[in-house]
Every structure is written in structure tokens, then in C-alpha cells.
């Protein structure tokens, strides 16, 4: 009844090419942004920021990056943790070694380094496909893990291999309190999400999708596989690298290579698969599912006042979480984003479904 574009006529190409062509969507997104930028900082307690919102926002960004590679271009990657690590450690080195380096610039340069490494490890994708590529990107994971553990230069000769940053600020504004950190991350994520959305709607996004759907056919109609695949690797690793930098700088403040281990790669891949391959919105859903749900499940017994030992609660958490993953994949193999679009379609017909 309300969600319907009747009467909204497009009179120019520009109007037709908007990210959100339906007015209701625009209003909803504006509202969502207003809530995220204004209402949440005013209302949420500190715990929510530090333990849930900041990790959620940063991992959403990483999931968007990975989604470009896996969801849009169809190149399975198990090296996401590695690209995050490159972003974080490169940003750290720029930040520490160059006096007065602005935070945003070092994060972006970290992303640029991740791009280089991503493209390098993306080269095998020109020859190998599917699961074989996944195994090749696994090499990136192990190589990067190894180099940050062994090459002391990368960690500024810290004896334990753990690095720390402090005194973050952007344009003179300190990034210290949880609200400031949250807003900083949220701003970056919003910008990157919009850019990613525009990229995947554009010519290059179509090339990626053509590559994903059938690379031979794509090559026949004149899409260069080298260009399409390597740009996907580049854009993806850039975003993932920036997310890695944020994870280290803003969320942890002090980290070691284990923060970007193979587990992180799997976690992000699960986010993308559960959230919805080939959907920017899905990346947020997936991140929410993987980040927030386990913490929620872990605290549930305490909230319901059910006496339960810590170990039992933690085992139950894993069991229910696993069961839910299986459940969602059976109900909707295309991920939570597909459920979302089904809901939107239903809403258009409501209250008079055929």
C-alpha cells in the first residue's frame, strides 16, 4: 500500500539512474542514516559501541570488500584475513615511521598496499578457478601471517610481534571516546558502501558479474578477463585493507598477526555467504549475523536468569549458532539479502496479494 512507486515518473535519465529509484527507499535510507549517525550516538551505552557496534561496522566494511570479489566477480578468496593484516600493518608503518602522518591518509595508504598484495595474489585467478583459486589465496593467508610474525621490520622491531597505536586524531579532532570511534568508522563505511554500490552498478560491476556468470561468454563479448578479475581483486583488497586498518587502529588499538588469522578469513567468507553473495546490503546482514548473534546467544542465559555454567553457555552458543547457519542456508540459500528482497516484493503487493 505504502511501498509502491505508482505516480513516481522519471523524466530524465539522471532520475532513472539513481541508486535508489523509489522514493520510499530513499526515505528509508535517509532515516536509517539519521538513526545511525544521530540517534545511536545519543542513546547507546558504551558497551554497545565498544563491543558490538564498532566491530560490526568495521567487519561490514570488510564483508563489502570481500563481497565484491566473491559475490560480484565470483572469485572465491580465503585470503581476506591476510589482506586485512596487510592493510593494518602497512597503515601502522606509515603512521609510526612518518612523523605527523594523518590517520585517514595512513589508512588509505594501508589500503593501497593491500591492493598491491591483493593484485599480486590475484594473478593466479587468471589461470585457476573456483575451489582451486580458494586454495591459491590460502597461500596469501599463510604467507602474510608468516611475514608479519617473522620479519621484524614490519612490526617496528617490537620484541613480541605485537604493535600498538595511540593518540588517533582526524583534523585535530581526537578519536578516543567510543562515540567518536563509532562515528569515524561509520563515516568511512558509509562512504565506501556508497562507492561500492556505484561501482557494482556501473560498467565495471557489469564486467565483474559477466565474469562471474560465465567467463568464456564474457570474454567472447569483449570483456578482458585480466582487467575484470584484477580490478575486482584490487578494489576488494583495497576496501578489505582499510577495514583491516580500522580493526587494528580503532577497534583493538594493539594487535598481533593472530587478529587476522585464517579464522578471520573464514568468518568473513561466512558473512558474505550468509548475508548474500552479490549484495552490498547483504554484507551488513551477514556481519550482523556473525558478529552480534554469538554475543547475544552467550548472554541470553544470564538475561533469562537461567543458571548455567560458563562452559555450557559457550557450548550452547556454538551449537545454536551452527544450527542457525544451517537453518538459514536451507531456508534461503541466497542469503539474508534475498529474504530482504522477498520481503520488499511482498510489501509492494500488500495488502492485496494475487
Amino acid at each position, binding site marked *: 500500500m505504502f511501498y509502491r512507486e505508482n505516480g513516481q515518473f522519471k523524466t530524465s535519465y539522471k532520475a532513472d539512474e539513481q541508486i535508489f529509484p523509489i522514493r520510499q527507499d530513499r526515505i528509508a535510507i535517509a532515516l536509517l542514516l539519521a538513526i545511525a549517525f544521530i540517534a545511536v550516538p545519543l542513546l547507546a551505552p558504551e558497551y554497545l559501541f565498544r563491543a558490538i557496534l564498532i566491530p560490526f561496522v568495521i567487519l561490514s566494511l570488510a564483508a563489502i570488500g570481500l563481497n565484491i570479489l566473491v559475490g560480484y566477480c565470483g572469485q572465491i578468496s580465503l585470503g581476506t584475513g591476510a589482506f586485512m593484516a596487510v592493510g593494518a600493518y602497512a597503515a601502522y608503518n606509515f603512521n*609510526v615511521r612518518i612523523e605527523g602522518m594523518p590517520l585517514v591518509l595512513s589508512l588509505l595508504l594501508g589500503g593501497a598496499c593491500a591492493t598491491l598484495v591483493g593484485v599480486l595474489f590475484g594473478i593466479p585467478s587468471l589461470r585457476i578457478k573456483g575451489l582451486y583459486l580458494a586454495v591459491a589465496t590460502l597461500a596469501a593467508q599463510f604467507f602474510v601471517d608468516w611475514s608479519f*610474525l617473522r620479519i621484524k621490520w614490519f612490526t617496528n622491531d617490537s*620484541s613480541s*610481534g605485537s604493535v*600498538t597505536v595511540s593518540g588517533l586524531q582526524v583534523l585535530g579532532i581526537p578519536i578516543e571516546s567510543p562515540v567518536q570511534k563509532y562515528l569515524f568508522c561509520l563515516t568511512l563505511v558509509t562512504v565506501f558502501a556508497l562507492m561500492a554500490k556505484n561501482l557494482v552498478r556501473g560498467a565495471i560491476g557489469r564486467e565483474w558479474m559477466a565474469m562471474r556468470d560465465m567467463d568464456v561468454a564474457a570474454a567472447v563479448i569483449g570483456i578482458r578477463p585480466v582487467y575484470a578479475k584484477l580490478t575486482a581483486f584490487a578494489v576488494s583488497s583495497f576496501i578489505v585493507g582499510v577495514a583491516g586498518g580500522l580493526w587494528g587502529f580503532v577497534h583493538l588499538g594493539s*594487535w598481533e598477526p593472530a*587478529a587476522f588469522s585464517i579464522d578471520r578469513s573464514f568468518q568473513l567468507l561466512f558473512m558474505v555467504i550468509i548475508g548474500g553473495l552479490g549484495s552490498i546490503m547483504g554484507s551488513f546482514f551477514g556481519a550482523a549475523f556473525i558478529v552480534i548473534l554469538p554475543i547475544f546467544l552467550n548472554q541470553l542465559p544470564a538475561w533469562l536468569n537461567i543458571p548455567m*555454567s*560458563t562452559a555450557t553457555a559457550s557450548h550452547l552458543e556454538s551449537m545454536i549458532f551452527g544450527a542457525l547457519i544451517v537453518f538459514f542456508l536451507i531456508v534461503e540459500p541466497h542469503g539474508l539479502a534475498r529474504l530482504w528482497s522477498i520481503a520488499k516484493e511482498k510489501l509492494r503487493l500488500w495488502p492485496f496479494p494475487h
Partner: protein
Amino acid sequence: MKLKSLIKGAVLAALSLSSLLTAPAALAQAKEQFFPLLVYRTGPYAPNGVPWANGKQDYIKMINARDGGINGVKISFEECETGYATDRGVECYERLKGKGASMIDPQATGITFALTEKAPVDKIPLVTLGYGLSASQDGGVFKWNFPLMGSYWTAADILIQHIGKKEGGLDKLKGKKIALVYHDSPFGKEPMPLLEERSKTHGFELLKIPVTAPGVEQKSAWLQVRQQRPDYVLLWGWGVMNSTALKEAQATGYPRDKMYGVWWAGAEPDVKDVGEGAKGYNALALNTSGQTPKVIQDIIKHVHDKGQGTGPKDEVGSVLYTRGLIIQMLGIEAVRRAQERFGKGKVMTGEQVRWGLENLALDQKKLDSLGLAGVMRPLSTSCVDHMGSVTARVHTWDGAKWNFSSDFISADEQIIKPMVKAAADKYASDKKLTRRTPQDCQS
């Protein structure tokens, strides 16, 4: 609707259960001293994490049952499962700190590193007994960190001294090969600066052999041991890594009596599965084990005999259980010390507990009265020294139990002090911190 009735039944059962049993993690009330307990009872480090966590919890229960709290202030606690993962540890910290945390024992070096940044902001002291950041011994820079009783630098130093003694003098170490088989994480890498320093002084060759966490796969590490034939192996492991290392040593034929573990590689779960195969294996000990000390007897009497025990009764008094108990005891004694200054019978804030930790003075008499006679060495902290004691012993596994095989050895302050100072100064300059002034020490 069979499922529906089943769910109904389950919910009813759960509700009735919750009303019958009092919740163990009672909500912190205004008049209670709250201790957040970061633990891991699942995952590859659980065999070692569980007794540690049980010791902490049982001691709190015992103090509440026997003494009615600290000068009348009841102690409350809540556990949070970290699984040894840094991000979950940070989440747990954020979850529990709002309830008025007295102190935090993160039980993991990785989590300690992450919390070292956060604790000063939230004004919660971090107690990292025998682990954490070695440089944080310097209370002049690390105001909120307390690596009580030892760090990895003192541990490594004590082991080298012990090996030197066995060889008949530290000068006899010249030309020897000592291998460090370490958990490839900040935990395993911490001892390196000290070992490098010692190897320069005494002229022994230091081999560094990493083991990828969690350490269930060590074939390549032990292949290196077999090729290089070190005279001694220092084992810097935790959790499953330790028992795996001992099994690999057995398979490689490396003599177990040439192996020396850090105090985190010298507990029952590490050697029990290997049994006879671990005979002769040595490790550092910060504390004794066994059920004879009075404090353990009190726990059995006041907690376990009343059915309130956290773990199985026969594991009470194991090496890591006792260590957990000591950590909790130090936290509680810090509260008691703080109460002497800030008001008896009051709930202490994190800031006040920090003062208590900094002014701990546990002499032999005090330890005896706590029922800890012989369990640990006296300890006294100060503003500049957040460690309090640098002494440990070596104990050896005889196939069934741990026996002490050395006297108390103190780490060489001549070597450690300058290193700690240099590392702390570097940290301070990186972070643009200034050293605490003498006035600050009074507050």
C-alpha cells in the same frame, strides 16, 4: 503440536530450575565487591584454563563462606568465556567492566596487550601474574599493569641460571646450544630479548623454533630439534602445545630431562596424558601443588563439602588451580589493603584497588595467616616495582607427580632492571607518556 508442548515444557522446566537454584552469578549489588572473571572453559586451551578459573572462583566462594567477605564486604563475581580469543576477551571486558570491576586477570597475553590500552582509561588494574608484558614491571610507566610474581623475562633468566648451575657454572654454557621451542604468538616471543642478552653474555647459541598456535602440529619443529641437537630445550607452550611437545620429544628421542618448560608448561594437564613418557621433564613453578596447605583445606571444607565447588574435588590444589587461587587471593588482599587506607567495610573502586596492588606487603607471617605457608614466596610491591617477587623453583615430573628439584632461584636484577627500564621508556616515548612523579605514587 508436539513441538510446541515440548518447548513449553522446556521453558517451564527452566523457569522452575531458575527459581529453585540461586543464580551463581548474582547481580552485583551496591555493597558488593565485584570481580569480573575472564576465563576459557572451551577451546584448545581449556584443559589449562579450567583449573585456573576454578581456583579463582573457589577462593572467592571460600572467602565469602568462611569470613563473610572482606571485612564484611561480600564478594560477587561473574564469569565470561573468552575462548583465549582477543576479540572475545575485549568484548567480555566491555561487558563486565560496567559492573564496578575491582581488577581483571585476562588469562591470556594477547588479551592483556589489547586491554593495556583500555584499562588506564577505565581505571581498572590488570593483574597478569607470571605473564603479560614483561616491561610492565616498571610501575613508573605502566600504572595499571601488575605482572605479579614474575614475567617471561624473569622466567627465562631463572631457567638459564638453573641450567648454568647444572653445567657447573654459567661460564660453562659457552658453546652450548639452547633451543627455544615457542608458541608463535606474543606469549612465546616475550622471552627472546632476555635470552638473546644472556646468549651474548655467556656465549651459548640460541635456536628459535616456532610452533604455530595452537600447537597440535609440531613435526617440523621437532625435526629441527633432531637436526640441530640442542643441549637443552626451553618449552614456551600453553594448552595442548605442551603435551604434544612432550609426545613429539618422546617420538624424536629427545631426552625429557633436558627439557625445561616455563611455568605455564608445568602443570598436570601438560604431562598427565604423556605419563611415563614425560618422566624427567622439568618446568618452572611459581607455587606448590597438592591439597595439604590450609587454604586448600579451607576450600574443601567451606566450599566443596557443601556442594558449592566449581570443579571436581580431586582437581582442587592442582598446579594451575593453586595459581588461580593465588591470583584471586592477591586481588582480594589488594582490596583489603586498600580498605585499610580508604575505609574498612567499604566497596573499593578500581582506582583504590590499584593502590592496594601497588602497596601489597605479604610477608611470611601474613602468608601463614592466609593459609598459604610454603605455597608461595613473600611478595611486596611498590610504585616502581609492580612485580613484587622474582623468585621461582624448578620442579620435575616423576611420571605421577611434580617434585621440586631446585632451590629458589631469583632472576638477576642486574640484567633485567636495565632491560625493563629501556623497554618501558621506549613504550612511554611511543605513547608520548611521561613517567609518574613521586607525588603520583602517593595517590
